[in-house]
């Protein structure tokens, strides 16, 4: 059976496709070195438009208005430029209300696309531009440690990581958020106080990695100006031991956070990357894995949610769970030494 996969890897090659949702302008070149926050492509994704009723403004029928239009599709115009006219005794004209580009001119109307700031697509992790993808974006390649999470607030940044979590379930309280953290990425265990998030914005910090967070804080976390990544759960749960060990042993290293939301359909997932030099045999992580004995696994649901262990045996046929549900299951030797039975669909293979 195919397994769900979570990457918690001390060293791996990483290749990520970063694409605009629509064609835009790619601003990097192949082979270029980029940081996580470097812009690799931009697009005027949701430009504002203005529809000018020329016929009405000139007080003319539509067919008489068109010959008086002084611009055509594609023209760049500045605020105050004459777009149509003059007509009549009073030399009536229609001027551009703002800077922009003429999209359509005719049928007595002009559609202007107004100038506005472009939407920028950031690299999301430090690395090299391995390839360009037409007018959509680029493929970024790097090596380092990779830790994937379950929730992110759609922001990207990088900085030196400060490990504040003294244990996987250590609560990140506001009194721990002091000025020494300014400009850094904070590693906490569990967060339930909105004040901790607020202080992060005021210092400001460059990112926050948590094992778990109270559900009530999610709307607040979406608004903070720095990336927030939850690795394990909404609610209170210790950070999974594999992620905690890897992150806590990299204190004061630079980490990059791509806190995009988990979207299985688009293949996006919140990720923490710790850039590290690749050794000779570093390879890309495996995304397609079948369940096999000996694999490291993470349990995603109660009663062993968040615990890691080793898959020791895939049980034949269907197993009746304590809930009474029958499903395919496996015996897992948890890291604490307990042997337990877990449904395969409640497991993620750590590779």
């Amino acid at each position, binding site marked *: *059976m*195919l397994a*769900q996969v979570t990457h918690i890897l001390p060293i791996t090659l990483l290749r990520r496709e970063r694409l605009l*949702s*629509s*064609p835009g302008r790619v601003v990097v070149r192949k082979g270029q070195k980029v940081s996580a926050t470097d812009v690799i492509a931009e697009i005027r994704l*949701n*430009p*504002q*438009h*203005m*529809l000018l009723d020329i016929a009405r403004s000139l007080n003319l029928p539509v067919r008489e208005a068109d010959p008086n239009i002084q611009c055509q599709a594609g023209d760049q115009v500045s605020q105050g430029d004459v777009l149509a006219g003059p007509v009549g005794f009073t030399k009536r004209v229609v001027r551009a209300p703002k800077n922009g580009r003429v*999209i*359509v001119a005719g049928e007595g109307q002009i*559609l202007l*696309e107004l100038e506005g700031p472009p939407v920028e697509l950031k690299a999301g992790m430090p690395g090299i531009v391995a390839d360009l993808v037409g007018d959509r974006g680029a493929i970024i390649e790097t090596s380092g440690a990779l830790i994937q999470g*379950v*929730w992110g607030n759609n922001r990207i940044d990088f900085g030196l990581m400060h490990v504040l979590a003294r244990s996987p379930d250590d609560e990140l309280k506001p009194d721990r958020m002091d000025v020494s953290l300014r400009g850094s990425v904070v590693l906490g265990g569990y967060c339930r106080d909105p004040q901790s998030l607020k202080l992060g914005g005021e210092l400001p910090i460059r990112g926050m990695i948590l094992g778990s967070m*109270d*559900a*009530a804080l*999610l709307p607040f976390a979406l608004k903070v100006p720095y990336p927030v990544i939850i690795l394990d*759960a*909404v*609610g209170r749960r210790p950070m999974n031991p594999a992620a905690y060990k890897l992150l806590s042993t990299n204190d004061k290293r630079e980490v990059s956070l791509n806190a995009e939301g*988990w979207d*299985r*359909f*688009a*293949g*996006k997932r919140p990720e923490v990357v710790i850039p590290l030099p690749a050794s000779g045999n570093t390879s890309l992580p495996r*995304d*397609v894995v079948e369940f096999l004995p000996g694999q490291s696994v993470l349990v*995603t*649901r*109660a*009663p062993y*949610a968040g615990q890691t262990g080793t898959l020791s045996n895939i049980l034949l046929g269907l197993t009746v*769970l*304590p*809930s*009474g*549900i*029958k*499903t395919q299951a496996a015996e897992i030797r948890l890291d604490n030494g307990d042997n337990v039975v*877990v*449904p395969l*669909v*409640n497991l993620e293979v750590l590779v």
Partner: protein
Amino acid sequence: MATSTVDAESLLSIDVGSITTRAALFDLVDGRYRYLGSGSVLTTAYAPFHDIGEGIRSALDRLQLVTGRVLVGGDERLIIPSKDDGSGVDTLVATISAGPPLNMILLGLLEEVSLESARRLASTTYARVVDSISLNDRRKPEDRIDAILRLRPDIILATGGTEKGASQSVLKLLDSIGLASYLMPEDERPAVLFAGNQALQDDVQKSLGKLLRLQFAPNVRPTLEVEQTEATQVHLSDLYRSVRSRKLSGVEELDIWAGGGLMPTATAFGRVIRFLSKVYDPIKGVLGVDVGASATTIAGAFNGELALSVFPQFGLGKSLAELVEYCSPEAIARWLHIEMSASSIREYLHQKSFYPASVPATAEELHLEQALARQVMQMALRKATSFFPAKVMRYGPSLSPWFEPIVASGSVLTRAPNNAQSLLMLLDGVQPTGVTTIVLDQNHIAPALGAAAAINSTLAVQVLETSTLHNLGTVISPVGNARFGTPVLRLRITYEDGREVPVEVKQGSIEVLPLPAGQSAKLNLTPLQRYDVGMGGAGRSGGLRVVGGALGVVIDARGRPLKMPEDPARRRELIRKWRSTLGC
């Protein structure tokens, strides 16, 4: 590899759900069509595959193992038609619900007329309405254009203008669509389905035809009083298929396998329910309830007239994280017989949305998952009921119409640890009235039969006649007003062996009378307190013959609508009692 519909015998169905891809095989056994087995695997529409083909191939492998029939040749291609050596199949039908719901913008003239019909249509497939444009829309045209550009709809459903009615105002509203589409990259432009004033077809074709994919359907509101949506539903299904094909690898190939007949799972499910409504008592409707990961589907059919509603916001998968936008955690908790905090419920909703394929391993999580099923069924049914024909028989406007039977699907219902749990979820979620039979589509074959009905109706009929649908039992739900504990129904059950058992049922209780599958019995019902048990009016007695099911005959006298005590401890105690009576 188009399928032949001539002299077709065996049939393979493939359903690509958001969690599971199923392949099922049907063939003639002793001259009658039977369901032979199925193979299920996880759907591969998502990363890292992004191609449903992988899952389909694995499901076929499983099916080959289960049935022992070779379906895929050495060249890795499906064997169609079947060969003399018994390998292959003669026809293939396919359904799909995988992938995010389509974004849809509705356009109509009047909020309460054409836009209302458009809304009704949009709810018949896996779609979310992201915006509506009508005469009441106070936005400037450029703001509408910007909204369309920002929302990137997959489909725009344009209605408006009765026949010989408004035309210029409809065309003016369509201007925004044309301009917005012109500004989009060609491959991202929405498909437009025009189902308004038919006299405008030439004008609409002229203004939009060169810009985007345009389809025409009969006017959904030919007059202010008449609504006709059936033909447009077919066009909408076609558009759903074409958008899915464009955005998801493997869908186009599956559609070719199915001879161009790939359809949304909900549409196929609705077809079976409509078919059943022609077979069963015409006074009552037939209800189909499918609680899936991608959506909850409600199909109500009344003597051949289908009202289909798909609610992606009420799916038990990824969308669960947003469920609290539609109901409070407390509303979910009232279905629980165990204590659980609102924050625990919120956390569960998020965790399940992170891992939609996961299953509850503990009893506590199972109870919560079943509470969610009750809640989404109730919310979906409440919304869907407003789309049912006005003439349907019911005891009151807030009560469920008369149904016979109720067909339930979705793994939370069909994979519950026992039949009693499945039944109680349905009794709570649907709250049927009068006398009805409740059956489970345990193998999720109803959509396959709906899809098959168009090319092999005999197969659909014969498979439905066999015991493929699992009969949970006959449910009698008296309707009336009495205090808790008051006797409201006396009944006598007479078994085939002549044994008679009298029972008195009190308001607020559930009673179970065993009647194994394959047996039948006669029931004599005498309502008290002017209760109505579906015998022709309040207080009227009567008799009926019932067939056995997994739980026999169940009398649900808990009241309609079901009102539970406000006091949490007393409520939980009562739920525990009901569970115990049913044998949950």
